[in-house]
């Protein structure tokens, strides 16, 4: 039973991490219908930027964190402005391939600078965060992830519900021509959604780096795990991304714990294929009825 709870806890926290990663993905897809293959690489960029600022430049942790978020926010703007904007209105495959190209480019660049080694952050989380439930121990990282994740989810909830930019973003996601005719600056919304997505990526990259150590291959492969999560939850649903992340995380750890560790890596993709066959729009995705 203890084993069960230990797996449950690690599954939930892994799932929360996936949910956090999927959030940025859904954000881009919702406002600009771009499938972002460079997601894992954006996460890795965030993680490494934080590493450089906190461990190498020895800035205070909070300042380093905020600077990382600001840096990734501007990176999102730059990516949108220079790579995505020329392709507005082009065929889908070109946009997808562009993000694949960006992914390879970023990955190569990071491997060139940092190599394939595993780095780790200086320990900055207070010991008191570690929680005990009987014999089950919840490491402090997970608690911190949970708290930070909840804060950001709340902030995004408010942002989309009440701020004018958030409402613009939702309107563009809903109906682009209508939003444009009502005076919404659609290109600015695209840019903003990429910036916010890059920010969320950076955040999940940092958390990932704290838990598993920072390694280019490791972090960018998590970026591919996002696909099962968002397909399960529905590509354009934030709630779905969170639930999907939790389900996939639990599935992975339980498969790893009870069936086989090698199957663990592949089970999300098997689920992905099944879902695509049965319910392609996921649990909460918008069903577009188009029959051919």
């Amino acid at each position: 039973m203890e084993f069960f709870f230990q797996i449950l806890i690690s599954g939930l926290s892994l799932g929360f991490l996936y949910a956090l990663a999927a959030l940025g993905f859904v954000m881009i897809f919702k406002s600009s219908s771009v499938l972002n293959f460079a997601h894992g690489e954006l996460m890795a960029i965030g993680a490494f930027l934080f590493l450089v600022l906190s461990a190498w430049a020895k800035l205070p942790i909070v300042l380093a964190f905020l600077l990382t978020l600001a840096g990734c926010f501007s990176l999102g703007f730059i990516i949108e402005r220079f790579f995505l904007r020329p392709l507005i209105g082009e065929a889908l495959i070109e946009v997808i391939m562009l993000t694949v190209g960006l992914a390879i480019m970023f990955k190569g660049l990071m491997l060139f600078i940092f190599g394939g080694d595993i780095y780790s952050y200086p320990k900055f989380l207070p010991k008191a965060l570690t929680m005990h439930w009987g014999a089950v121990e919840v490491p402090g990282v997970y608690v911190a992830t949970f708290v930070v994740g909840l804060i950001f989810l709340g902030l995004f909830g408010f942002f989309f519900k009440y701020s004018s930019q958030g409402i613009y973003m939702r309107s563009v996601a809903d109906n682009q021509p209508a939003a444009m005719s009502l005076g919404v600056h659609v290109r600015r919304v695209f840019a903003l959604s990429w910036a916010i997505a890059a920010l969320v990526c950076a955040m999940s990259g940092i958390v990932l780096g704290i838990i598993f150590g920072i390694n280019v291959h490791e972090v960018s492969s998590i970026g591919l795990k996002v696909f099962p999560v968002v397909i399960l939850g529905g590509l354009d649903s934030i709630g779905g991304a969170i639930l999907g992340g939790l389900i996939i995380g639990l599935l992975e750890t339980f498969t790893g714990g009870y069936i086989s560790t090698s199957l663990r890596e592949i089970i999300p993709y098997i689920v992905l294929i099944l879902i695509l066959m049965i319910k392609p729009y996921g649990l909460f995705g918008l069903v577009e009825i188009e029959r051919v």
Partner: protein
Amino acid sequence: MRRLQFHPCGNFNESYKEELTIFETDFGRLSMLIGLFLLFAVVPFISNAYILYVMNMIGIYAIAAIGLNILIGYTGQISLGHGAFFGVGAYSAAILATKASCPFLIAVPVAGLITALVGMAFGLPSARLKHLYLCIATLAGQFILEYVFVQWESLTGGAAGISIPTTTIFGIDLGSDRVFFFLIFICFTVMTWMAVNLIRTKYGRAFIAIRDNDQAAEGMGIPIFLYKLLAFAISSFYAGFAGALFAYYMISITPEPFNLWLSIEYIAMIIIGGLGSIPGSVFGTIFIITLSEILSHATQFLMNISPSIGGAITIAPLREFVYGLAIVLFIIFEPKGLAEVWRIVRSSFRLWPFSY
């Protein structure tokens, strides 16, 4: 005797037959014959072992790239699993050669057919899915096949892989690069010829119709699911065929080369070469393989001139960076790829001095 024709200055087709011709002019046919003559009678005898190796790789990869272009460029179905299909072909050929001791001439086409079946199985989601959903489904297919390569140890030999004994064909030993050169490029010529002609048939036109507008295609009476499956099958057949050649050429195969990176490399080839263009696939393959060879030479060169720095800084990842950059630049500045560049170069010669 017909008059020999040179390039007309524009599009003056008067019938569908004219539009369907492969060579617009006799000049094109002549240059193809010269090209084939150079390829088979001159190149293998003047190149050294290394050049032959690179040429052979180009030949093998080009066959698979043509297959992928039929799927992505002509039918419009995005596949991120082509590298794994290539692997399925390689493993099928290796298993047929070692376990069933099939001769080369049977093992290679059968490996292609097996891969076609596997490809169709992974093409099944295309019944309900389009565009990005299909793209994600094939991504999952890639990971699942990779897993099978490693885990099904009784058949695939796990991480250690399979070694294939050298074989003979019509009594000729297939051990040397030069013999393989002829073999690969005969296959390459036949497969290219098949692909070029496939596009001119009913099936090829149906593929293009599905790519351009699937609803309209359905409206015109094309059973699009069957045709999509057919496209997956043909494309996987090409990949499997190339994979089988690769297995025989490499002698021993492991699961490593057939990863997502290979699939992306294939997509890079056809995007850089030109989507929806058979010559484009070949141009793209030449570009990517040459680029990768140049970059690996540059790495070695840098290591030789400064072992102290070269040991610490490896520029191998720069290869990935340059690939990515090439893809991004081609998509932004020349989405139709090298085939379009080649067309522009030709037509500027033709239109000289009144180019516009």
